[in-house]
């Protein structure tokens, strides 16, 4: 009874902030578009009963435009998360290895970008990368190139902005995992003849996989739906699901199709979450306390 009372607030919270929006989204996704406010006829109502349609989901499946947008978004998010992971791992190792005073400073530096606005930071990148920007200015002054390089509105600029924005989300869980690790296990590996590189490869890295999975997901999930950064820094022809959603929602006012697209993205994101969850559970099982046994038990007897 007490247990139920304790669990009630988080359940209510989840119901209100997670379950309810998803149900509403699903409801809109199976509704029919109609002129008016809101621009759809509800799939289910007291007067008319069920009036839903699977047409929007069918459209998504049939029109290659949306599938391509979803696929490309997942790809961009995957590349972003991988780049963040590769950059964050050495940073997290450094933070974990630093002394107490340095560690606080380094973590503060990782979080420092959050103190400035998101859009001004993107504006700064535009200022650096545009044709008349600093980077091109320096390159021309040095004689590396005579014409400004097309740096802005490219995949490179988009990934630069994405990694810049999401890197802290990868550093923090990795640093937390690496800080918690048991150094005596690594000493034992060295003692048994493993060089520093082999210790890293065979002990440090596999034991940090749960943290790496968390870091990957924390970047991958928001990056898959990212709209602003590709819009401001990426190539104009790049179609991502964020832009497709924006277009359906605000330009075409096709809320049901936009909702269906959001549902499809959600469904697509559950796959990597499940995969990494398995990894994480493996990790926590390894760290779990051993099954209770009597002190007098002979080894080899229990199987």
């Amino acid at each position: 009874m007490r247990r139920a009372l304790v669990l009630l607030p988080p359940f209510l919270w989840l119901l209100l902030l997670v379950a309810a929006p998803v149900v509403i989204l699903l409801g809109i996704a199976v509704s029919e578009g109609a002129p008016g406010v809101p621009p759809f006829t509800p799939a289910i109502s007291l007067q008319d009963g069920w009036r839903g349609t699977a047409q929007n989901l069918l459209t998504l499946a049939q029109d290659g435009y949306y599938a391509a947008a979803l696929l490309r978004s997942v790809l961009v998010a995957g590349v972003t998360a991988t780049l963040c992971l590769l950059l964050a791992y050495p940073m997290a190792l450094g933070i974990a290895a630093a002394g107490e005073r340095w560690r606080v400073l380094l973590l503060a530096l990782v979080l420092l970008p959050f103190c400035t606005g998101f859009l001004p930071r993107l504006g700064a990148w535009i200022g650096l990368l545009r044709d008349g920007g600093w980077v091109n200015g320096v390159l021309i002054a040095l004689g590396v190139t005579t014409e400004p390089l097309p740096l802005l509105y490219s995949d490179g600029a988009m990934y630069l902005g994405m990694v810049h924005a999401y890197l802290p989300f990868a550093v923090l869980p990795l640093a937390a995992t690496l800080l918690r690790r048991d150094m005596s296990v690594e000493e034992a590996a060295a003692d048994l003849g493993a060089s520093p590189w082999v210790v890293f490869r065979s002990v440090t890295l596999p034991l940090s996989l749960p943290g790496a999975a968390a870091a990957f997901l924390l970047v991958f999930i928001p990056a898959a739906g990212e709209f602003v950064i590709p819009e401001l820094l990426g190539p104009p022809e790049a179609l991502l699901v964020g832009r497709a959603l924006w277009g359906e929602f605000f330009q075409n006012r096709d809320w049901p199709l936009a909702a269906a697209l959001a549902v499809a993205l959600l469904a697509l994101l559950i796959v990597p979450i499940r995969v990494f969850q398995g990894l994480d559970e493996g990790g926590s099982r390894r760290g779990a306390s051993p099954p209770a046994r009597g002190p007098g038990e002979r080894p080899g007897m229990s199987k």
Partner: protein
Amino acid sequence: MATPLLRLAGVTKRFGGVPALDALDLTVAPGEFLALLGGSGSGKSTLLRIVAGFESADAGQVLLQGRDIGALPPHRRPVSMVFQSYALFPHLSVFDNVAYGLRRDGVPKAEIARRVAEALALVGLEGLAARRPAQLSGGQRQRVALVRSLVKRPPLLLLDEPLGALDAGLRERTGFELRALQRATGAGFVMVTHDQAEALALADRVAVLETGRLAQVGPPRELYERPATRSVAAFLGAANILEGRVRADGAVECGAGCLLRPAHVAPAFALRPERIRLVAGDPPAENGIAARVRDLAFRGDGWMAVVALPNGGEWRVTLPADAAPPAPGDPVALAWAPEALAPLSA
């Protein structure tokens, strides 16, 4: 003696100016079981970590079989260490844990399988090769840690409080097994412990460390019977310390008001509780004293009496279980043999 297995010469280590080890000299013979006994902060773990290579000495030499290994990183040192926490690889099976060191040495696969199976059989863990460390009991994990180090057949095994994490029932048996394993493998063992009973029971020699210096090194019996200093005597169980004043005729007046006639003259002596006996009537003029029982505790194999001396001091006296013990408050006459007085140098 041939080349010692391990020789430490003038090893010094400071942490922030505070010496953890102070010009320490120590040798370990091949196949010897040495216990490093000391309280916390005595430097015993630092010493082990310097030999293993996890800390470097500020001064002095670490010689393994005559070769200076002081500059080698841990993975190039042919010594092996068993960690207090066991430090098993949580992501690897028992088999892979034990095989880890052999794989690093590039031992062929078939030989690895054979040697790991042998090693696991040695400690009765044959059936558990596929388990993860988290699925083992404390005692089983301790064995895995032990054979993981021993499977490489190191000439010297370092053990950091190997029995410290086990509960009392398991400690004694595991201690005997450790001893048997040491004899079977012929490796030199250096075991760090803060438990004097463990050190005395298992080791060939015991080295007592005190604030970074060796207070005394010797076989367990010698240490117990003839502690060299007050602190060694105090550390190795509850010995009574007798402060004295040497007289011209070779007798020693002890502060408690007795006259000692020891075998060797010294300013202070340790007197073990079990070497004191009760005598009828008055105590002897020499090597005896009158006292009064203050407290009495039954210890199963005997009685431990706390007696009050005329000068207000207290001694501990062990009385046999079969005799009728005196009651608290009774006056008693105590006596001891001259050899029972262990001279203390400091």
